[in-house]
């Protein structure tokens, strides 16, 4: 069982809210699988299948094949812009 907090930054937060709790009844899950599960649960979350939406686990930007453990912080974020 994996319990996660998933948060959203940028434009996607307008559609998906700032944060969601998720539970997976498995022992391992990848970032890509989290995207897919969110898109399955919620039509608005299909935007997460766009590769421009990047992900971080415990504040480290990762690829879709990165594994996520229970209790870790997952962030999905839209394109960034400073300055």
């Amino acid at each position: 069982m994996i319990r996660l907090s998933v948060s959203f930054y940028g434009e996607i937060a307008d559609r998906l809210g700032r944060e969601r709790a998720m539970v997976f009844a498995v022992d391992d899950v990848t970032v890509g699988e989290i995207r897919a599960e969110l898109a399955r649960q919620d039509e608005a979350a299909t935007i997460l299948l766009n590769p421009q939406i990047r992900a971080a686990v415990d504040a480290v930007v990762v690829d879709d094949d990165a594994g996520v453990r229970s209790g870790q912080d997952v962030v999905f974020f839209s394109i960034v812009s400073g300055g």
Partner: protein
Amino acid sequence: MAVEARLETGGLDAGAELAAFLSGRDADGAVVSFTGLARGRGADGAAVERLRLDWHPVMTARSLSVLAEATAARFDVSDVLVVHRGGEIAPGETIVFVAVASPHRRQAFFAADYLMDRLKTEAMFWKHESGPDGGRWIEPTERDRADRARWSD
């Protein structure tokens, strides 16, 4: 060499930052600064009442440090400073202040230019502007991406 990167959630006084950066500096002849200001109109000419920069509690500050360090490593500069606002910003207020000191004028210009190009496309902020016509998210422009692409990694 000192590299300083700060996320500022209150105000940002560019004049005071420059004065502090210059203070006691007698080994470097050249200091280039860039100040980015919130504009009263968006790219399409519509009035902007408020700019909001969302930030992540860990990744945003770290991205500023990474970019400032990369600038210091790439150019012949002695000190690099970046101060970046997060939160709500009114038109005319400073969003970002960058300063670079070097013994060489050209290196100082290059370094500040480079740091700004990277901040525009890589600093971890999410920028939202709103006005009487509603709100929209701001992403780097094609020009910002072309500017970034001038510098090979």
